């Protein structure tokens, strides 16, 4: 029988807290969970081992999302965190660390509020006000750029446009060489953007921008390389790969009016056993072929091939989604069976005959092919490539004029495309013992498909390498989609802190000015100001943790630096880009010495606008849900298992 348990605000985990605080176990747990993930914040990440005591297996993780994914959820909160992160990661593929940190920091803020006797309703309304202030400040500090002005090619930028302050990598290095005599360092460029109009340029159309053209003209050229560099967050090598992928993609894109990065047309191919400097980006679709397919490849290379696309498995018993096999089917035979070939063999023969009739040499499928099918195809020099993404299939459909089908039997002349070529990408026989052959499938130079080849000689690093590549690729993708960047390295956060503190001060003043009789109103104002201060404290924590993680700074030192910056900042005049970058690339100790020439060498760090906004919002939503929850309803619990539960 199913039993039901109800945990009513009790847990033995935190014995030291006062009786009243027992109620908010969820918030304590959330903040504790977030604290264990602090080391993943910031550009300098450290690996973590997660060990399974029972199986003895361990996993190496390097991101917040991976860690949570690898942990077994033991309570509703873990589940909730996991679901939130999954949802975020599914769309953005980056920013989980920030989400988790702020969820922890703001649950601390809520706990402090509760400790001071502020009711849950008031906390929620004050913190909602706080997040609105933050999101508004984020929007204000974003640097918008017009898509038409993003320059693609790194080389041309550097050569032709360095005089126009284009911030390509090459230009940057030049700038650093001549930093003493060159006035316009990259940092200044951005400041000019900010100062000029008070707001950033949002050029919606060409007509719009004409009105303030003299302002805009100075900064309208952004090179992708610069944007990428700003977003690389110390993953320079993989970010370079992402940029290269994008450049290859847009070289083949006729429509050049907007620079975009179509992430669905990017594939990764992971090669184990090669040194890491073999990582590269290749146009077209690179797949690994093994065994008997290799000889088929040698037969087919340099030929123009006919291609068929199958969205599903290539096997006898594969049925489309939603098909139910009739249960009550009996086979009755009036004579003893003597048939030699099985049904599968017949099917394989039929399909191969069809393929031969259509002249197909290459089949790309999203699922897997059965062994007999692969063997038959190989015998007839037909190459079967399995486990491709549907988006890749769609791309082939566009570029070859073929139509993806679900069953091989659906194939007809109109479904078959032409003009595909196979080529050996690189001979790896000197490295590889298993003889996996990397083969590129191309459609005559005009494909937008790009494959990133990721190599490493340490196998467990491959996964995190792939993660990093996708994170970089998505950051670039989002930046080009948003057409906006957010000053990073703590600058946006500091700007938000200023705004929160300003509002908190305003609330405090309102409270002290008001007539004493309106007791309820003043209490609310006071509570709001307290909560806003606490939220700002959470952001402060974030900045200092990033600083601590990236250098040899102590917590106290980091805090001093941040608060000094905040004191000298004028909310009314400045904006986020006015802050110096607190987390520097090379030397964390150089933090306060902004004026030194060293500054010119550092790259400005930027973040994604929509990712940060979403992550902050989701973090606070998570805190609100946990804050309002006082119990857990679990069904189907074994009575002996749970000791601290109440049972109905």
């Amino acid at each position, binding site marked *: 029988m199913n039993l*039901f348990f109800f945990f009513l605000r009790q847990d033995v985990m935190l014995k030291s807290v006062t009786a009243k605080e027992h109620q908010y176990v969820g918030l304590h747990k959330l903040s504790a969970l977030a604290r264990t993930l602090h080391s993943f914040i910031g550009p300098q990440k450290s690996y973590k081992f997660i060990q399974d005591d029972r199986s003895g297996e361990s996993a190496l993780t390097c991101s917040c999302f991976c860690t949570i994914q690898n942990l*077994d959820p033991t309570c509703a909160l873990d589940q909730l965190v996991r*679901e*939130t992160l999954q949802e975020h990661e599914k769309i953005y593929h980056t920013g989980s660390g920030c989400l988790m940190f702020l969820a922890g920091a703001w649950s601390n803020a809520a706990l402090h509020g509760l400790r001071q006797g502020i009711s849950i309703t008031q906390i929620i309304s004050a913190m909602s006000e706080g997040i609105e202030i933050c999101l508004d400040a984020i929007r204000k500090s974003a640097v918008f750029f017009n898509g038409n002005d993003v320059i693609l090619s790194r080389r041309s930028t550097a050569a032709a446009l360095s005089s126009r302050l284009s911030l390509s990598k090459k230009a940057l290095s030049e700038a650093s060489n001549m930093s003493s005599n060159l006035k316009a360092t990259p940092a200044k460029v951005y400041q000019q953007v900010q100062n000029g109009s008070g707001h950033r340029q949002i050029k919606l159309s060409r007509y719009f921008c004409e009105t303030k053209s003299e302002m805009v003209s100075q900064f309208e050229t952004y090179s992708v390389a610069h944007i990428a560099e700003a977003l690389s967050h110390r993953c320079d090598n993989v970010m370079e790969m992402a940029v290269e992928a994008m450049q290859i993609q847009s070289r083949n894109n006729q429509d050049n009016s907007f620079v975009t990065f179509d992430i669905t047309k990017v594939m990764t191919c992971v090669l184990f056993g090669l040194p890491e400097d073999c990582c590269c980006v290749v146009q077209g679709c690179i797949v690994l072929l093994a065994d008997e397919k290799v000889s088929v490849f040698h037969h087919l290379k340099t030929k123009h091939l006919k291609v068929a696309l199958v969205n599903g498995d290539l096997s006898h018993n594969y049925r489309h989604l939603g098909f139910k096999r009739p249960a009550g*089917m009996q086979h009755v035979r009036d004579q003893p069976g003597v048939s030699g070939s099985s049904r599968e063999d017949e099917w394989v023969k039929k399909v191969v005959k069809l393929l031969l009739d259509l002249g197909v040499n290459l089949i790309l499928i999203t699922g897997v092919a059965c062994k007999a099918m692969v063997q038959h195809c190989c015998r007839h020099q037909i190459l079967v490539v399995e486990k491709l993404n549907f988006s890749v299939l769609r791309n082939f459909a566009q570029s070859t004029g073929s139509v993806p089908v679900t069953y091989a039997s659906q194939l007809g002349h109109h479904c078959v495309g032409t003009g595909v070529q196979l080529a050996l990408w690189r001979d790896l026989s000197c490295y590889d013992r298993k003889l996996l052959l990397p083969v590129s499938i191309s459609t005559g130079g005009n494909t937008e498909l790009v494959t990133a080849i990721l190599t490493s000689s340490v196998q467990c690093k491959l996964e995190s390498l792939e993660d990093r590549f996708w994170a970089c690729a998505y950051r670039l993708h989002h930046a080009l989609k948003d057409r906006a960047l957010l000053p990073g390295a703590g600058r946006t956060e500091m700007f938000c802190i200023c705004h929160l503190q300003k509002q908190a001060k305003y609330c405090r003043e309102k409270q002290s000015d008001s007539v004493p009789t309106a007791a309820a109103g003043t209490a609310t104002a006071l509570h709001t100001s307290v909560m806003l201060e606490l939220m700002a404290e959470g952001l402060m924590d974030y900045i200092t943790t990033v600083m601590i993680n990236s250098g040899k700074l102590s917590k106290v030192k980091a805090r001093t630096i941040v608060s000094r910056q905040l004191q000298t900042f004028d909310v009314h005049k400045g904006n986020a880009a006015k802050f110096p970058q607190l987390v520097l690339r090379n030397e964390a100790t150089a933090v306060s010495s902004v004026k030194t020439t060293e500054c010119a060498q550092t790259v400005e760090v930027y973040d994604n606008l929509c990712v940060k906004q979403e992550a902050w919002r989701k973090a606070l939503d998570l805190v609100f849900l946990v804050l309002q*929850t006082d119990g857990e309803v679990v069904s189907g619990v074994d009575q002996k298992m749970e000791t601290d539960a109440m049972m109905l």
Partner: protein
Amino acid sequence: MSRVEKKAPSVCTDLPLNNAEVCAKLHLMKELLKSCYGPRGRLKHVRNNIGGRVTTSSASSVILPALYSSQPLLNLIKSSVLNHISRFSDCGLFAGVFCLSLLEQARRHELRESLAIKVNKHCLSLCTSYLQRDDCACRVKIDFSSSQNLMTLAGSIVSSKPACLLTEAEKLHISTMAVRAFLQTIPCSSPGPVTLGQTVTVTVRGLPVLDSAMFPGLLVEMHDDFNQTDSSSEPLRTVLFSTSLAGDLAELGDGTIEADPDLDTDLQILDQLLELGKQLVEDEVRLCVCQKVIHPVLQQYLRSHGVVVMERLGMALMEPLGMLSGTQPVATLHARIPSTAYGRVKNLSTKQFGNKTMLHLQPDGEAAVCTAVLCHRNETMLDELKVAWRKTEDVLRLTLKEPSALLGGGCTETHLSAYVKHKGQQEASETAAGLRCSPAEFLLGVKVFCRSLDMVARSLEHDGGSSAMDLNHAHHWTVSADAAGEDMAGGLGLCGCGLVENSSTEWTFLNTEYAEFCPAPLLGDSCRKPTVLDSFTAKVNALQVAVETANLALDVRYVIKDEN
């Protein structure tokens, strides 16, 4: 050889309500339901023990189905509340808390079960007859010529779900949408019996709430790309299948088929399907919709003939689509489709919501079908928003049956309690004689009933504040924890339902004794409108369900449990 197992004897519990364990469980359940009650109620994480999905909610329709108890009494209460919710949607927590309070208070005051049953019945009839009376002071007439009361009613329900985390502007947006949807589903001018239209909800995760919108017609999510065919202005001939066109033998049921092994059944059915496809093309069908899956081969065939194909529509959309297009769902593929089964859709277009692409089907002519697209930032809140939306929809429809609403914010409960206390005191001796008990016993029973009603009103407060009632109109007021101890007449503001303002009368805290009084009706010329309203039909029924369930539980003498 069969083994003989020793059977355990059945366990019989005498007077379950006197059993400490049962009482503790009843109390626990009451605390659980109480903590969820009202716009500031606390949420619960609901999950199973094997790490299933976590739902966070304070709605009785989500929490109650997850409760399993080893005590039949608790299951009895649970199922009667669930039954109420399935019919009226609203006031589930009210029914639960009231019922459990009645049981608890009766035990606390050591009232005999038989007497408690009789007095409860009497008090219930007092309440229901008062609520039906024209001069009832806690009932508000709903005037369909103005949307104000409807908006208030919708707003109260939307705000009673704190897990939605809506701001004031968002609450207003959603309740306006709900009222608009309600009004759109009432057909304007159709002779004969009137059938109400339907609102279909589509949820989109990740967009702000203010992006939620209403559309006439149907929005259906597209699974694959939609290629806009020639956009002629003519209506599209539509066919709707309720049977699977996936090529399986859906009509076979549990029976068996004997077939020759050389026979390829799949191919046979596919031929049949293509035959069907040919007929559709001949009949100039332009839109083919199937509740279940359509075989890819058939899809390919139809698409190549310019037919728009939609599969996996789902059960929920079948009826609205039938209404919209006038099609008769086709349930077999073995007969020719009669021409009367075809319907028409005026226009097809695509709409993009976040990452969802939806096909918009517009009705050809007047059809009271509309689609509400609900958006929220994350799944938990979106789920709760959907619960609130459905509830609002149902409650608004209930107003067609009985165009009234009750004052919300606990005011109805305190008002009824004061009325019952007053009435009981007045008629104590004669009623007591009728019930064959002493007047003192009767008054104790009345007290139990009133205390239980007060308990429901008190459950609205969760932040440590206390509840008070004015001794003039008997409305409900909350005193926040900060303001307690200060002069109450100074800073209480408006009452729970927003109808009475800070009148300079006397107050009493709800858990204290007070002298009975007759609650005065509000003067009609007050320009103030109530800000919180509850569904009349749902609450009256909840009141009855609670009392009857409590009476049933009080009547239980033994619980016999088979231990095998």
